[in-house]
């Protein structure tokens, strides 16, 4: 048992830090400091930079374009990205669809899709949820009926994040309506330019456009775009969600927010003095820090165990990471919003103060913190809501 990084790992961390410092474009860096959102173009630009370096798909096998890092190196890499903060490589591509394609896809699919998934030439969105199939995903009804070499798809997806930026979707469709509902689902890749697809925006509680409804009206998708076997899509989806959950703790993101809250608290004056000297505030920061430390070590333990088992099966303990990860993301977004105090009452959109310009190093940088807090409420809803994670733990681990 050894919790410290080896000298080699430490120098790897330095290498990653230096790379981010030297290569993250200034305008992208500036947005992170101002509670502003990254644009699609920012994500594309940054992922290309990472891909050119061979770092876009940190946990993929080398043969598919991964860098061949150890689990610890991968972890260090993600932490450095999140703490910088820099945009994460697009999770839909790198954590979700990529591993499904290289694990269950055909040779042709691997050769065609994987390089484009890495480079973000293909931007994938996730077409799982439907109006009637949220937590109960297996009840999904969007249908795919065979017609010659195609499936003809009809139905509706909802909450499809980034569908307005994406040119591809990985989608769960119903290919069989008899028998157990889990056994009639297939996993298909859909070109968003196919006729019959309509994308309609959903504006979220922060006033921004992140997510969508997607409608399918007789959309023809080649059967060749199905990944794996017909009616086995549920297994691939479970594999994918297990991967999603390991990546979802986002400890680095929360650490970055905590640092930001502390820095901004230096600029805020309570009745007694600086907010950063306030014992209530300090204790809350420390409590979050303790929780983050525990979460970080738990994440490493689960990664280590998965690596040693090496059976590709999802680990139900990854529910801990989703559960506590969402909570700490929420706690830290809340902390920044609290630091904002009454300034947080002003609604701002993408980095402009209502009454004057503001800069990252003055107190008005807290503007926008409250909409961020609003959106962070979604972290305990998407990717399997917290209640569902608790159900998984109580059933799959505790046998209740």
């Amino acid at each position, binding site marked *: 048992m050894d919790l410290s990084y080896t000298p080699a790992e430490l120098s790897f961390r330095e290498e990653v830090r230096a790379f981010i410092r030297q290569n993250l474009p200034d305008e992208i860096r500036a947005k992170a400091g101002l509670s502003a959102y990254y644009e699609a173009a920012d994500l594309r630009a940054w992922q290309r930079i990472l891909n050119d370096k061979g770092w876009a798909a940190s946990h993929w096998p080398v043969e598919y374009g991964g860098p061949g890092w150890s689990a610890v190196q991968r972890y260090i890499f993600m932490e450095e990205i999140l703490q910088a903060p820099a945009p994460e490589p697009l999770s839909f591509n790198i954590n979700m669809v990529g591993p499904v394609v290289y694990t269950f896809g055909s040779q042709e699919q691997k050769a065609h899709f994987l390089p484009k998934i890495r480079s973000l030439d293909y931007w994938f969105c996730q077409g799982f949820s439907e109006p009637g199939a949220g937590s*109960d995903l297996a009840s999904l009804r969007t249908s795919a009926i065979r017609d010659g070499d195609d499936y003809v798809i009809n139905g509706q997806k909802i909450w499809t994040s980034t569908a307005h930026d994406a040119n591809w979707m990985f989608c769960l469709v119903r290919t069989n309506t008899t028998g157990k509902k889990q056994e009639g689902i297939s996993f298909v890749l859909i070109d968003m330019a196919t006729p019959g697809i309509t994308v309609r925006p959903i504006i979220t*509680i922060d006033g921004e456009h992140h997510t969508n409804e997607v409608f399918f009206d007789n959309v023809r998708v080649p059967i060749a775009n199905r990944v794996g076997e017909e009616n086995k899509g549920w297994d691939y989806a479970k594999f994918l969600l297990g991967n999603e959950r390991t990546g979802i703790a986002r400890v680095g993101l929360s650490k970055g927010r905590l640092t930001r809250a502390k820095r901004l608290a230096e600029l805020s*004056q309570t009745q*007694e003095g600086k907010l950063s000297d306030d014992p209530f505030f300090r204790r809350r920061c420390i409590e979050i820090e303790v929780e983050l430390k525990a979460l970080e070590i738990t994440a490493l333990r689960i990664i280590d165990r998965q690596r040693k088992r090496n059976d590709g099966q999802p680990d139900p303990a990854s529910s801990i990471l989703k559960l506590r990860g969402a909570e700490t993301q929420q706690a830290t977004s809340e902390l920044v919003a*609290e630091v904002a105090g009454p300034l947080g009452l*002003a609604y701002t959109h993408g980095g402009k103060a209502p009454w004057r310009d503001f800069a990252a190093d003055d107190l008005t940088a807290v503007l926008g913190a409250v909409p961020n807090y609003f959106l962070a409420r979604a972290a305990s809803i998407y990717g399997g809501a917290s209640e569902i994670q608790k159900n998984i733990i109580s059933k799959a681990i505790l046998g209740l």
Partner: protein
Amino acid sequence: MDFDLSSEQSMLKDSVHRLMTQRYTQEARQRFMAEPEGWSRDNWRQFAELGLLGLGFDEDLGGFGGTMVDTMIVLESFGRGLVIEPYLGSVVLGGGILRHAEFGARADMIAAGADGSRLFALAHEEEGARYVLSHVSTKVRRTAGGFVLEGRKINVIAGDSADTLFVTARTGGGIRDQGGISIFAVSKDQAGVTVEPYRAIDGSRYAAVTLAGVTLPESALVGTIDEGFAVLDRAVSDALAAVCGEAVGLMEVMLHTVVEYLKTRNQFGGPLARFQALQHRAAEMYVATEQARSMAIYAAMMAGEPDDRERRRALSFAKVQIGKSLHFVGQQAVQLSGGIGVTDEYIVGQQFKRSTAIERQFGDVDHHLSLIDAIDRHS
């Protein structure tokens, strides 16, 4: 001991409730928000007709009488309807200055406020104030005939709609001293006054008010020079008690909406309401709402308490409980709604935004915990 409403209070409650159910549907509310001022003048006239705008002012001053309990009743209904009109800003806060300060134009202003022809705003908050009520850096220069004001105020509720702004400014003392604060009545079209409206996180309309060499006559002074803090403190006490009432109304509707949702949303072959984890969560929301209701009543009873220490301590108690309950009920209402809870359109999301704003208005939980602690340590 009696927690029942009087028959007049029951009538008031019924009439405001009727107004809400008739006029304040969700679609109507969107329309009101889209009006030029971000709220509806037509509703304001209705409020005037019902006597709501003169509520809380003594009859000998041109008001309709009424206590903080009456104001709480109105605000509770407004919370349920998610009312966007600046009642809090104009009638309770601006009106609070009129209630607690004595000056020449007062009776005329109260009458004009009560009939709806005139709106008021308190222009007090400043960028560096955080929640410290005595933080005032706006400068005053004395001249032969009066005063010249210089400074910037933010988060002024309905600052662009108000005819008269009550501006706090420093005539003596240091930036956070309670002594040396004075209040001035400033007309918004006075030379040197710039009002920049903006949207608040709860969808209501705020403004930043910049005062650049605003020249005022002697008569613009509201109350006694250097002693404005006492008036400000009383006005804010009233407003704090009022938002406690609004918070209770909000929590009630959030809970109600969620309970209905759990009964009708089907997942895993039946309604969500059959999951005990969710039943217990809803039960906790109910408990939090009732605890808050008790403290809203306490706040309404104590808002008029003349002893500063007693009043401040009681109101801080109320705001701590209200803040904690709002936080829990608001977050859980979103959580139990699932994805729809985090959309801009859904009513629960909008109610959650208003809850989040109330958590901050007149001080958050930490601020009031510190105030209580300071009071207790110094007595």
